[in-house]
């Protein structure tokens, strides 16, 4: 069995979870004053995620550090903010990454192999002044690195032989961070909007307020200047606001919104940033899809949003207004509305 201290460092490990299970604490137990420390620390983890994007490691009191992790997961689940889920998982994964960087190669390898089933071998090769300590099967490498954008993570720029990619120690822990982020994301994505006993719920509500206060600064709330949201047709406004609020959108709605934003003149990079900041889609894949819709890839056709009638069929048409009656396409709505808005601005008397 794993030691309490190890479990406190890496509470997402299955053995750590088993340790917690053995303590057999109920929600009501946690509400008892003796466990206030655990609740404090759990709240601390979540607010660190909100405010800094990175949780600290308080290993002085192992048991509190360990128990606060499942409680923090519960807080996140109760908060039910998709955007925060992602930020929290990353925050905890970065915490683990920093701890892993102080571990021996053998410890790193053990976690990668037993917890995440990586096909990983220890090596020692000095090449180009870099010390390579691991060889990882390309399958596990791509599973984690394919989303990274820097050239050094492209497979073509790696040293690969016989299916194995050479990695330095920090590179390996960086890939593990990605794996851990997904693991934690999986731990919190179930049972939304759960209601907790009062002393716990009070903390959740407090965290909710902290999140609201910081929502715009961390969700990249500032909007592009050249796209006028006021000109959006109701359906696109609904989709856009839903996206910002972290509501899960269907494929049709996402496609319609993306192609609408592209055709309305929003910059691809900004769309990617927007989508990545508010969803848990990984950046490179999002970019790939958006570039595809923009006609920069594949068939090179630039897609336009579907017509109103198609959107209606797929339930994407929401709250149509009087202007909707005059148009058959969300883009025509936008063009007319924009002219109206611009016209009014010009009509204003000069100061």
């Amino acid at each position: 069995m794993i030691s309490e201290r190890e479990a406190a460092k890496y509470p997402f490990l299955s053995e750590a979870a088993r340790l917690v299970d053995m303590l057999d604490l109920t929600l009501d137990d946690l509400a008892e004053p003796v466990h206030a420390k655990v609740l404090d620390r759990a709240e601390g983890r979540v607010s660190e995620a909100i405010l800094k994007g990175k949780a600290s490691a308080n290993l002085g009191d192992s048991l509190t550090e360990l128990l606060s992790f499942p409680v923090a997961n519960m807080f996140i689940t109760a908060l039910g903010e998709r955007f925060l889920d992602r930020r929290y998982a990353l925050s905890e994964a970065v915490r683990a990454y920093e701890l892993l960087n102080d571990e021996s190669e053998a410890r790193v390898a053990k976690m990668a192999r037993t917890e995440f089933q990586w096909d990983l071998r220890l090596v020692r090769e000095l090449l180009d002044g870099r010390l390579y300590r691991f060889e990882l099967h390309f399958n596990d490498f791509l599973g984690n690195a394919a989303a990274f954008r820097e050239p050094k993570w492209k497979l073509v720029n790696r040293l690969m032989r016989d299916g194995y990619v050479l990695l330095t120690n920090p590179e390996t822990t960086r890939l593990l961070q990605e794996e851990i982020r997904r693991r934690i994301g999986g731990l919190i994505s179930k049972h939304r909007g759960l209601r907790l006993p009062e002393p716990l719920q009070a903390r959740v509500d407090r965290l909710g307020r902290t999140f609201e206060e910081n929502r715009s600064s961390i969700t990249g709330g500032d909007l592009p200047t050249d796209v006028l949201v006021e000109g959006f047709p109701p359906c696109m406004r609904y989709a856009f606001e839903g996206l910002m609020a972290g509501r899960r959108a269907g494929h049709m709605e996402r496609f319609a919104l993306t192609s609408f934003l592209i055709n309305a003149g929003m910059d691809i990079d900004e769309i990617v940033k927007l989508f990545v900041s508010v969803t848990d889609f990984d950046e490179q894949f999002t970019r790939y899809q958006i570039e595809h819709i923009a006609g920069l890839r594949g068939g090179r056709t630039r897609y336009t949003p579907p017509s109103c009638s198609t959107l209606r069929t797929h339930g994407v048409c929401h709250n149509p207004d009087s202007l909707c009656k005059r148009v058959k396409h969300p883009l025509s709505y936008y063009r007319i509305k924009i002219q109206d808005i611009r016209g009014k601005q010009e009509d204003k008397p000069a100061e």
Partner: protein
Amino acid sequence: MVEQDWGSVQFVAEQFRRYYALNVSSVEAPSEIRQREFGFLSFEDRGMFRHKGFDDAQHLRHYLVDYAPSHTYYSSAYYEAPEAAMEFKGWQGADLVFDIDADHFSIPCQEDHDRWRCRTCGEEGTGHPPESCPGCGKAAFIEENWLCPQCLEAAKYEAQKLLDILIQDFGFTPSRELTVNFSGNRGYHVHVRSASVKKLNQLARREIVDYIMGTGINAEFQGFNQGLRGGRYISLQEGWRGRSVRALYDFIADASPEVVEDLGLGKAAARKLLKNRETILGLLMERRPRNVVKYVDLKSIGMLMEVAVQEQAAAIDTVVTTDIHRLIRLPNTLHGKSGWLTQEVPIDDLADYDPLSSAVAFTGGTLNIHIKRAPEIFIAGETYGPFEDERTELPMAHAMFLLCRKAAKVAS
């Protein structure tokens, strides 16, 4: 219609029917057939009939005998319910598939046998169609694509380069995990079937495509970095490390001053490169790429490398590999545009494999046909043509090929 259509569809369909009646036992079920989707094209030209599933080889063969399709495909993907509509199929994984088609590269022989005609103004030319019509500026063309031993050799060469990368760099085991099929027309398909690739998502497959094509290769990570010292760097030959240096060597050794100037390196860099050509080649030969940076700046090396690696990379169709729902031709079935077989080629035999004798399905006897127009046709060691609006008697293989290409009709 009074006059029979070019291609004599009825006749060809009947030949396909007979072929399947006699030879269907050679068609094997792909692995995990119950998880595969099948798709077919028929001679009646009603579009793709897909979302079809089979329990075993027997049912599949019955289908081929009953319908004798003009083209037969199966999914590289594995589904829970292959017959369900796309969104309900339940994707479980997919083989990693590569498509090499001579149509995607430029080879001199295409100037001899391929033609295009502008749909708008009727302007004509040879080879691949231009970006836009020199006559009217529009970009809609009717293409007439043929093939010859050179195209097929070129495609095979690309397939061999691809196999080298898959075996050496990715470590796939030939035969057990890797199979090669002649496509039945102008190219080859390479299939990787292994647990390690089955679950790869599109993003990961795209990285593999980039690797194979050398896309995004960066000189800094191929040893051309002066900042890093220490350890082994001289003898490294594996993967792109070795390939990129060889590519650069070949390119610099062969490049004429004009070619170098056209790269956009900038005058000074180009001059320096040409002046120090021998020294640079020496350094590359000794595999001291790091020292090359003294003579050519890293940025220029990057530009050179981007062009140079094309020769070492394999020309695969990027869309096919990244599409995880792709339908691909089933081996030992007929290709409706050639009358040849899609055929598995043992990897060890690939070097000597000649599709123009091995994959020809219709042989024996002769046929009287009326040919609209065709270049020289070389099949199974016999050459006929070129033809221009003429009636002639040809061996069955040549006649069927021209009919499948819709360049002839059976003479009454």
